[in-house]
């Protein structure tokens, strides 16, 4: 796989989780396909997936790689800042802590 030995590939069907569908939709919308502003290209998606450290790449699922790559692209382009992302993450953690 990717030029490296990886054993036999077992193709299986699986249902997508709701968050995976949303990541897919997010990527499509950011590419401007629905007439919105084009905020990323598929090449940026690939570049930022390729920039993942090998162990992280191995550990992550397909859409986990996508969501990390989309986020990196938005930071690189200045659509969001690292600080805004951190504050939003804190806000969501607090919101989820209240639910438990």
């Amino acid at each position, binding site marked *: 796989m990717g030029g490296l030995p990886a054993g036999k590939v077992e193709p299986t069907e699986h249902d997508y989780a709701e968050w995976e569908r949303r990541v897919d939709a997010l990527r499509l919308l950011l590419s401007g396909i629905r007439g919105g502003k084009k905020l990323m290209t598929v090449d940026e998606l690939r570049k930022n997936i390729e920039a993942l450290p090998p162990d992280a790449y191995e550990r992550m699922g397909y859409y986990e790689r996508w969501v990390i790559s989309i*986020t990196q692209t938005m*930071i690189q382009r200045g659509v969001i*800042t*690292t*600080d805004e*992302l951190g504050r939003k993450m804190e806000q969501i953690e607090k919101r989820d802590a209240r639910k438990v």
Partner: protein
Amino acid sequence: MHARFKPGDAVRVRKVYPLGHIRTPFYIRGHSGVIERLCGNFCNPEELAQMRSGEPEQPLYRVRFLQKDVWPGYRGNAQDVLEVEIFEHWLE
């Protein structure tokens, strides 16, 4: 930019792990310390790393932590300290 904290103030480092280039070490996030000094104002490295200006400059502080609070099972002197330079937007 006006500095929000002064030497002696108790602060906590925000415990959050966003993406990007961040100068606040992982091991110190979530820990409480005391402002040792204001180092000055500097452009935000999180923005500089993305090839943007990083302006306006942000206050940078040297923050003092007790080693025993930071490292689990620390067996050195209980008064040993660790000082880390942290930007204001990472402190609360």
